[in-house]
């Protein structure tokens, strides 16, 4: 602060507009939904205060809730596992291609497309054989008829089909972040390392990895939070069906609030989601802080 030579009050004034906006648009709604989570309320008529009743129902009586939590977490793990892959790819691109920008832009294309378009596109790819689905068509032409499935409607498979689409869509996004990170590492470091005898894989291990940790962390957190909130893709492709087989926390929350008219209950689920997000963000931050310390 002192370095800036500006009174703290002035800083406060400059921060204030954004802070207020943030409080109004983020914190107030969170607090409101914390409160409505304690109500038995259909969103329209008078509400009844029932304390933690919604949470009790959610944890013990709701057959949809825990499976949807499990699917969400699995989704999060899968998206985080994708990041090392992106990093590896970024390193390779940086090393073997002089101008990888075009390639990176191409990988980035799915991110620009709206999720609705992505959803419709993959729905046609996943279509059953009888409706000319591309994936099944390819399998049949390879003579792998027994491998064909109704990718989006078989309860055991549908969720994995959705994971794949999401991983495909965000691959380019994380690749871009990692690639930018790798590019920003000064060449001098590598040149110095080369003189010391560290080249190729060794240079990656002792130079790239330690320096990329902060960028890596950003990607991991983005991937994690993004998949906890996954909603649009599921809604477009399956709507959580068949019979809740692809419901994740957010779609369950949406269905409870808006389809079943259980607004209070939906808010309770939202509260759970916020708490989970906060806890895991905290955990990830701690892990990476330790990592950063270790390397610096």
């Amino acid at each position, binding site marked *: 602060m002192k370095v800036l030579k500006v009174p703290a009050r002035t800083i406060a004034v400059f921060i204030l507009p954004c802070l207020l906006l943030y409080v109004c648009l983020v914190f107030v709604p969170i607090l409101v939904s914390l409160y409505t989570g304690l109500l038995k309320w259909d969103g329209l008529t008078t509400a009844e205060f029932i304390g933690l009743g919604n949470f009790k129902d959610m944890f013990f009586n709701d057959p949809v809730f825990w499976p949807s939590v499990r699917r969400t977490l699995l989704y999060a793990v899968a998206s985080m596992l994708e990041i090392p892959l992106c990093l590896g790819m970024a390193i390779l691109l940086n090393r073997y291609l002089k101008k990888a920008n075009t390639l990176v832009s191409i990988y980035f294309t799915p991110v620009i497309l709206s999720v609705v378009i992505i959803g419709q596109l993959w729905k046609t790819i996943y279509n059953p054989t009888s*409706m000319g689905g591309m994936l099944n068509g390819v399998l049949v032409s390879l003579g792998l008829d027994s491998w064909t499935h109704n990718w989006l409607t078989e309860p055991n498979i549908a969720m994995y089909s959705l994971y794949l689409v999401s991983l495909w869509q965000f691959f380019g996004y994380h690749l871009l972040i990692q690639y930018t990170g790798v590019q920003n590492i000064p060449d001098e470091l590598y040149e110095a390392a080369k003189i010391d005898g560290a080249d190729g894989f060794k240079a990656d291990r002792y130079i790239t990895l330690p320096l990329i940790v902060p960028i890596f962390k950003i990607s991991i957190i983005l991937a994690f939070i993004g998949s906890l909130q996954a909603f649009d893709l599921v809604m477009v492709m399956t709507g959580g069906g068949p019979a809740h087989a692809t419901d994740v926390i957010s779609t369950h929350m949406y269905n409870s609030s808006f389809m079943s008219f259980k607004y209070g209950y939906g808010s309770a689920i939202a509260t759970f989601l916020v708490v989970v997000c906060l806890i895991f963000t905290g955990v990830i931050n701690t892990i990476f802080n330790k990592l950063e310390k270790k390397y610096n």
Partner: protein
Amino acid sequence: MVNRKMKQSATIAFTAVMALSLAACGNSNNNTNDGAKNNAAPSAADSGNAAATTAPSDKKVTITFQNIYPDPATPAYKMINELSEQYQKDHPNVTIELDTLNTDQQKVKLKTQAASKEVPDITIVNPAAQMKPFVDAGLFAPLNDMLEQNGLKDTYQEGLLDYYSFDNNVYALPDGNNIEVVYYNKDLFAQAGIAAPPTTFEELLQDVKILKDKGITPLAIGEKDSWTGSFLFMNILLRTNGGPGFLQDVLDGKKTFEDPAFVEAVEAFQQLVQAGAFPDGATSIDANAGGNIFKTGKAAMWSIGSWETGAIDASPVAGKVGAFQFPTVNGKGDPNEFMLAPGSAFAVSANSEHLQETKDFLNYFASEYPKKQFELKNAVGIGQKVDGDLKAAGYSDLAVNIAGLFNQVKGGDLAFDNTMNPATAQVHLSSIQNLFVQKMDSAAVAKEHQAAFEANK
């Protein structure tokens, strides 16, 4: 000196920001206040009603009309656009803003708007149980006075407005009064060598197998929107129960979902699924796409409300389609009892900023509605009386056929979600959707329904 100036301007900036952000936070409050004012206003305006409606006011008014007619290929889309344009021409001060959505989107949007008490001037609701929460919350304006104007009330069929009335107040005007029928493609039936439409469930299953063997999808459906499967299932229940009133009996505590009639209906429905009656991947097809399977001649049958008659006549399979009553199941039920769909209906927001203008427009709209629909060959299943002979006006054989079925209606049931509360309905919808992808123990399905009903009473 500089410092003081800075402090001063900082204080001013600070105050301005505070004021602005408070205004942003308090925005919704202002709206509800306005709403309350408007609520009080009409009673004063009502007394001078006739004068107010005849004297053209120059006040610029924009009426938002939320509706569910999104497909430009359908007569309903043309109807709403042409009527709105005509009204705007006659009343230059009025702008009608159409907020056009899919059925399911509209339901969600309205629910979200209702939660913040910002219902559009005119919106669409479904009858009875689906509409009740909105009426209980005081979101809709009673339309009794407006129905008396221009004799609008007498154009509606006897008893139809009851589905939209609570405490002797009518809260919405239905766009139709339909029944569920099974449409079938005569060409595809002939191709499979089926002489006549089925009259029993056993025959239906038989036909399903024959069609399936010929590589034709027997029954079109779009089960991603789960009401479609429920609508068909309820028709089976109407038969196995030997008549209407099953859900009402459950509500009244006279029966439970574990009643044999319900289990039998689930059993029969599962037979249909097992026989391969529905398209592959039905649960990922949305309702419109499901209907298009039939309308493009790729499926032999489609069990849906008679509201589709006009759209079928405007589709590639026009002229090849007939309709039959849902068959008896295990010898039970009367084919002349139908699943009844007393339309979706137009309701007016109680908080509308220009309630009188909105009512005037809706009065015009509802009065012109039957004529326009008749003109557009979409008059089958509308809830109002129309002058004119269908056949003479060039309607298709299918339309005349369906109109004939209306005369045979002896009674029936409303859809599940029009009878039960939304939470129970959601469990039901997802439970039926599950039958499309998994073989279940029918008794367990019944038990799941009962548990949901008791939990959400």
